[in-house]
């Protein structure tokens, strides 16, 4: 049960910023999909409601209990990831969804929460100034195991979005010079091996496309090109809400999901983008400030990992829509359409609020 004093310490500003950004998302989801069947904006509103309830329910459990239970969450998530490989439905080429009667869920999203909890629990007892080799390997293993399962779906984009969690952990735990060299070496080897043996042709093409967009105007180069035209042609004030007549954008299969930022850029222009990014920045700022409000090491890790996860995904997505990053299928947190991703982000922020509201409590 929640204590009344605890309720008073809920960070309502953070909840407000979370809702504000989600509602901005709904507006542009509506603008970019209202002429399609599917009522995506209504579905997103429904998901916001569900996620908000989940956020408060999640708050009722002290994060120390969550940390204690984290190995079990992590285990269940791994089972789900294996399950989805066997029983999942294929959506745009990847087996990453469980199809339920009214909606689909994507276990690879929710797994991020489990990974963050396990890492925070692991490092809450960590007292030295820099990471040792063994600890580095342990934390890498925690992240790479689910990431490998997600890669097998194959959903390389989502698997890559796990990497910032690992990076954030190492940044916080402290990297000695030897570890930095080791990580660079491993990345290089993984890169070379991955490029030659693991990446599928279309994935390689997305990367070469980024370097030479003119060589592939038909495939993903086309997507990037259209997205860039959309953003660029938005100008200072944009073409107006629902008036993004960049008809080419209709060919982007994911304009209300992964490419929602292009729609924003086209319809409300640079001015609008500054406002939207401003609201987003306030949310990120609040998340990073929360790190300072943690009473213990585990809390610091939780807040920082969540803040870093959302920030990195937002950057990757936006860089993708303006043609600076390969098309990776990573949604823009809170703004893109998608229930699983929304729920995950709300639960992640819930962890931060959880840490903050219990900072005065003695146990």
């Amino acid at each position, binding site marked *: 049960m929640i204590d009344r004093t605890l309720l008073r310490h809920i960070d309502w500003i953070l909840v407000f910023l979370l809702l504000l950004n989600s509602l901005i998302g709904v507006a542009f989801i509506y603008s970019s999909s209202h002429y399609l069947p599917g009522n995506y904006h209504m579905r997103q509103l429904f998901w916001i409601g569900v996620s908000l309830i989940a956020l408060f329910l999640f708050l009722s459990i002290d994060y120390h209990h969550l940390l204690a239970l984290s190995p079990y969450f992590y285990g269940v998530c791994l089972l789900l990831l294996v399950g989805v490989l066997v029983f999942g439905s294929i959506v745009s080429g990847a087996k990453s969804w469980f199809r339920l009667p009214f909606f689909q869920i994507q276990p690879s999203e929710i797994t991020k929460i489990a990974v963050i909890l396990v890492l925070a629990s692991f490092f809450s007892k960590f007292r030295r100034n820099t990471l040792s080799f063994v600890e580095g390997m342990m934390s890498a293993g925690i992240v790479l195991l689910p990431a490998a399962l997600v890669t097998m779906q194959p959903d390389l984009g989502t698997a890559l979005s796990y990497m910032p969690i690992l990076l954030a952990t190492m940044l916080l735990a402290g990297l000695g010079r030897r570890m930095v060299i080791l990580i660079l070496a491993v990345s290089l080897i993984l890169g070379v091996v991955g490029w030659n043996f693991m990446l599928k042709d279309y994935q390689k093409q997305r990367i070469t496309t980024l370097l030479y967009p003119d060589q592939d105007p038909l495939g993903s180069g086309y997507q990037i090109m259209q997205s860039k035209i959309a953003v660029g042609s938005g100008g200072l004030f944009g073409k107006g809400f629902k008036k993004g007549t960049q*008809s080419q954008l*209709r060919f982007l299969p994911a304009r209300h999901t992964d490419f929602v930022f292009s729609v924003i850029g086209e319809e409300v222009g*640079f001015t609008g983008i500054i406002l939207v990014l401003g609201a987003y920045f306030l949310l990120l700022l609040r998340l990073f400030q929360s790190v300072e409000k943690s009473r213990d090491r585990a809390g610091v890790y939780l807040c920082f990992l969540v803040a870093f996860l959302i920030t990195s995904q937002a950057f990757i997505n936006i860089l993708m829509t303006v043609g600076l990053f390969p098309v990776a299928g990573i949604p823009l947190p809170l703004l893109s359409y998608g229930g699983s991703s929304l729920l995950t982000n709300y639960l992640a922020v819930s962890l931060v609020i959880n840490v903050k509201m219990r*900072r005065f409590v003695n146990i």
Partner: protein
Amino acid sequence: MRNGIYEDISLILRRARMSFLVVGVALLLLVLYLWKMQILDYKKYWEMSEANRIREVILPPQRGLIKDRRGKVLATNIAAFQAAVVREESLNLEDSYLQITELLEMDAEVIRERVEKYRSFPVFHPIIIKDNLDDEEVAKIESRRREFPELIVQAKPKRSYPNATFAAHVLGYLQEISPQEIRQGTFGGRGLGDLVGRTGIEREYDSELVGASGRDLEIVESTGRYKETILREVPVDGVDIQLTLDSRLQAKAEEILEGREGAVVVMDTRNGQVLALASFPTFDPNKFINRFTPEEWMDLINNPSHPLENRAMRGLYSPGSIFKLVMALAALETNLITEHTSYYCSGSIRIYNHPFHCWFAGGHGQMDLPQAIRNSCNIYFYQLGKQLGIETIAEYARKLGLGELTSIDLKGEYAGLVPDRDWKRRVRNAPWYPGETISVSIGQGPLLVTPLQIATMTATLANRGNRVQPHLLLEEDERLSLQSSTGIGVSSANIEKVIQGMWMSVNEAGAARAARVVGMDVCGTTGSTQLVSRKTAEKLGESRRETKTHSWFTGFAPRTDSRVAVTVIVEYGGMGGATAAPVARELFRLYQELLNHD
């Protein structure tokens, strides 16, 4: 107190702060980049967005051809043109409807209705409003391209059956997919306006035949002139299908049936390949593509002789005397009789205090089993039936495939009916009467079979008890030959005795003598199924067609190492020996000729 606030976390807090600083700088750089794109390079991107207008052109696949066993094309595709509306190009849709109405002489309501159906599609998606344009209409639209950029002509292959009604029941027909089928996903990802196989091979192998459409995304200038293709998804043509049908036998079967109602099945007894499968009256599947006039459609569906029905697998008939083959085999197998057991036929017999007649009022006299089959004597089989009982009769009927689907590769086949006590209780809620067994003994009563079942049974007999799977897809052979034929658990020696009777029936002036072909060694039997009782027939008089019997023949040839089975039914054809047997003879004779010729 656990960890508590006394824990020193200042170091990791400093690291977190540093990281956020990096995030802030990155965000600043991002804003600068957006400034470059949206403010400095605005003109370049704006021009690109204005100059680029995209047109989508659907590239339909070719539906797979259907060919006979020798490669003769039975179903193909020909070029046809459709008029389509692209909403994106229209300034005002209502005005467009009115103008198109004038140009194509269509009702504006019809056009609006069609366009509305596709409202949820992207606005550059062409919506077909008229099929099968003639040359004049194509020229009209093309010449006024500049005035009506929203109206375009698309070429689309159209299904065509070059020989019209030929093998129509085997090929089947296509029809527009229904909204319900789209909802249920019966035909995969196909949508409004697509044609799908409704019956026959077109239905059975629809997913193989259909292929997948592709599309072109073209950039056009604001004047509508083509600039470049930016995306091409190549259509995947459907797979061609080769049937086991032999057009020459099929043509002969249809030629003979012309003007009557009935069905013919010709099957290769060695492997179950269906060489001909004809049903009359018939229809022209092309009509389904070109759309019926309302009168034509009403005529077709209200026609009392049901031309759309495939009688060969959906026509349910009493087998009549053909069923005596089952009776003979059951009696031999249960050791009730030997081939030498004889009975006396005086033209009628009293059983259970009820008179039962032979078709030959004068009586056949004393005779053994082969003679009884040869003469198709009712009295002999009444006696067998009385002693066998309905359950044993039903058991052997099922062993020979009656009352069960043949599982031919055509959908909609009927299983017929083999009655027994259980069925009577379940369906009619009444006990089985012994007198009914006597009727069933000569293939009357509730017993119902399809011509295809009879043909399959005949092949089983020809193979001395090995059943082959009837099929129409030539490719199936390889798969089926692996499992080859399956024994039905009846002794080949006993079948040989039945075949002796069938051989005599054709070759020793028996009931099926009209099917005799010199040098073919045909074995067969006839059937004539009464539709009304003898008394009623006398009352109705000769004029009514109900007084005539359905005329059956089934048989195979040659007697040893048999190759082909022929089953014929002609509705209201009179005696089997008089009508169906001569039809079969023509087909046996043609088969013999083709064999010598090939």
